[in-house]
């Protein structure tokens, strides 16, 4: 927490050096924000439904904290090659309440056209939509499928990344390399992750985007011993005429804790835009991976990887400029395991994430997303 405050103060001081006037094009501060107000209700009282390893969430009573968030972003642009961005985000994380944190604070340098270097705190590029994942207005679905997006354990990067972007005819290619530190969150506990490295490759045409990327570290500090962790992902997204479709496949792996952590996840999303209405459907699945050589470890700690499959159907309605409404109904099947979307804040320690869900659960959600 102390570190977060320090980063915020440094970022604010940094942004202070930029001219705060808006004369001419290019020299200006921009202030923008986004938010979601969401209500969720689930059909079970066995445990609470959340996403992205939130502690607690929706039960048979309506919950407003699961999907609601509010983000504020300040960008200071000194000239056409130097800028700084700070983003604060209030959302519910693994602390069973909404809290405010500095999500990003980075300085961006573009020395030549196509080359971008960033340093500071930023989103880890783990998925096809990593850096706008909290912005409901920017996505078709009500919330990202937890069977894939809930698997990533290193959400933020404190370090630097370099991206080179080049257009070859109608195809835009971008390559990113990153390095730094992060915090790994598992079962409500934080672990320092050092020497985090990663690479990201993206191919984009007017209507299709392909992405492949990997993030890894061999220095996650668990009980004084460095442990290995990696996350690899492949994805494609299509936005053509009125068709929207997206699919991703990810692999989460660990060395020593292989059988607790390792899992494959994938989803397929398809939708069709009828004017202001975009109905869509998603199928998503997490499959834990098992290696008999690591079996004894499995007995000591609750599993982080459990089976979970969800079928979801929803609709996005672009009601007003800058405001959309979404409704989503989903059926979550954990096959009798604790799954990955459920927890019980009334239990102690890691047991809070280890409650078996005996029946498939129906979840109904309604969101209002806005940007300003």
């Amino acid at each position, binding site marked *: 927490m102390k570190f977060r405050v320090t980063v915020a103060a440094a970022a604010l001081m940094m942004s202070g050096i930029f001219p705060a006037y808006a004369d001419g*094009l*290019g020299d200006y501060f*921009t202030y*923008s924000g*986004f938010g979601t107000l969401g209500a969720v209700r689930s059909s079970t009282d066995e445990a609470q439904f959340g996403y992205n390893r939130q502690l607690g969430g929706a039960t048979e009573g309506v919950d407003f904290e699961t999907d609601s968030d509010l*983000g504020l*972003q300040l*960008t200071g642009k000194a000239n*056409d090659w130097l800028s700084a*961005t700070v*983003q604060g985000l209030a959302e519910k994380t693994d602390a069973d309440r909404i809290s405010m944190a500095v999500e*990003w604070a*980075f300085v*961006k340098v*573009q020395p030549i*056209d*196509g080359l971008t270097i*960033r340093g500071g705190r*930023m*989103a880890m590029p783990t998925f096809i*939509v990593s*850096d*706008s994942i*909290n*912005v409901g*207005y*920017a*996505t078709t679905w009500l919330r990202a499928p937890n069977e894939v997006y809930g698997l990533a354990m290193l959400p933020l990067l404190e370090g630097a990344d370099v991206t080179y*972007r080049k*257009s070859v005819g*109608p195809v*835009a290619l971008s390559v990113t390399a990153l390095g730094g530190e992060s915090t790994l969150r598992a079962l409500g506990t934080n672990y320092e992750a050092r020497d985090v490295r990663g690479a990201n490759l993206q191919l984009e045409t*007017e*209507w299709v985007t392909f992405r492949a990327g990997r993030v890894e570290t061999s220095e996650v500090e668990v009980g004084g011993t460095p442990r290995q962790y990696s996350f690899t992902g492949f994805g494609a997204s299509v*936005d053509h005429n009125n068709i929207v479709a997206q699919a991703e496949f990810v692999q989460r792996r660990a060395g020593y804790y292989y059988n607790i952590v390792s899992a494959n996840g994938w989803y397929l999303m398809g939708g069709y*835009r009828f004017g*202001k209405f975009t109905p869509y459907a998603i199928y998503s699945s997490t499959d834990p991976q098992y290696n008999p050589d690591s079996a004894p470890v499995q007995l000591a700690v609750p599993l982080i990887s459990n089976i979970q499959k969800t079928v979801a159907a929803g609709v996005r309605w*672009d009601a007003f*400029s*800058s405001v959309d409404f979404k409704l989503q109904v989903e059926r979550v099947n954990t096959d009798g395991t604790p799954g990955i979307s459920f927890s019980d804040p009334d239990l102690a320690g890691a047991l809070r994430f280890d409650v078996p869900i005996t029946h498939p659960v129906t979840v109904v959600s309604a969101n209002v997303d806005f*940007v300003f």
Partner: protein
Amino acid sequence: MRTFFRLAFPSAMIFGLGLAHADVVAVVSAKSSVTDLTKDQVSDIFLGKTSTFPKGGQAVPIDQTGDSPVRDEFYTKMTGRTAAQLKSYWAKQTFSGKGTPPKVISGDAEIKKLIAANPNIIGYLDKSKIDATVKAVCAP
């Protein structure tokens, strides 16, 4: 035959109205060395994917207001994106720190004045609004 005319005539009129839609063109200063740009090049500049013209020189796009009759047509023809898609695209870019949408300038006259004065600026206008101070570089 009479039925045919009765049906065909009004639909021809409706079709004619559709064609009478504004003819939007991308424009730069008459002083600029930029000549012809492709749709993809204009699209890259207005979507913030590049900040330079293909043959060099900084490119600064400026936008018409949301209620302008040419704005939707420009983006649909140049980038293949509808107003809603564009809004969502910029939300994604803005809140991932990748870029901000072009500055919005109100009115054709003001747009023309800015473009005429600065060879780095690129905008778009209805073809009929072009005069000697600015020139068309891409007609989709």
